[in-house]
């Protein structure tokens, strides 16, 4: 269960609530805060609260533009590396929670083959900071 605000026990969960609050307030967002996982066609996203360590991840999906549905919160340390069994399992858990909550299976507002960050978060967002090297 992704009860983001429930664990009022440590600074890490407070930082996560602060990060979600920033998102909800319409603050500037890039993929340091919320990122689509690969492969993009699976529509898995993670909201990342990096400090303090261990960092925390909220896996979820977008139900509509700007509407992020978090399915489960996990410390990053439990997820292993990219493509690890733990991480892949978490994606399946995300899908299970998504389905059980009766949320739509297909994303009608995006084109999976042409991923664009701004289609998911429509205002005050860019995947990367726009600064030439």
């Amino acid at each position, binding site marked *: 269960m*992704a*009860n983001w605000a429930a664990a009022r026990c440590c600074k890490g969960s*407070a930082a996560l*609530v602060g990060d*979600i609050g920033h998102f909800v307030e319409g603050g500037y967002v890039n993929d*340091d805060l919320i990122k689509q996982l690969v492969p993009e066609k699976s529509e898995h996203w993670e909201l990342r609260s990096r*400090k303090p360590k261990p960092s925390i991840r909220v896996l979820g999906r977008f139900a509509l533009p700007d509407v992020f549905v978090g399915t489960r919160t996990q410390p990053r340390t439990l997820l292993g590396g990219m493509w690890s069994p733990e991480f892949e399992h978490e994606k399946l858990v995300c899908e299970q929670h998504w389905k059980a909550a009766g949320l739509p299976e297909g994303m009608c507002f995006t084109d999976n083959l042409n991923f664009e960050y701004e289609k998911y978060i*429509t205002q005050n967002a860019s995947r990367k900071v726009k600064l030439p090297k």
Partner: protein
Amino acid sequence: MSYPFEAAVFAERNRNRVYEIVVKMIEEAARKNGVKRKDIAAKIGRSEPQVSGWLKGPSNWTLDTVSDLLWSIDAEMDYEGVFHSDRAIQNTYNESKVPKERARGAMIQEISGDYEVQVAVHG
């Protein structure tokens, strides 16, 4: 004595707000004056990867980071303190004050079913 949960929430919120201001100023400097990453790195005597790391996200920022990045583009913060009580709408974090029925701006909302998911609406 333990660090209050609400204080930690507010600190993270502040960190994200400062990051937004600085990043937007840097993007504006890039648009208007052609500032590049290597220019910023050279001006503050840091490596490009270090600057890239800072620009990626605010998790490692200090007050000096804010100063250095803004100084590199000939800018600075303009500070003004505001008491929450003086704001028309208070910015203090209070879960109980978030009306669940308000979809836009609602922080936490139950959807349905045996599984509970949480919804965050941007903006």
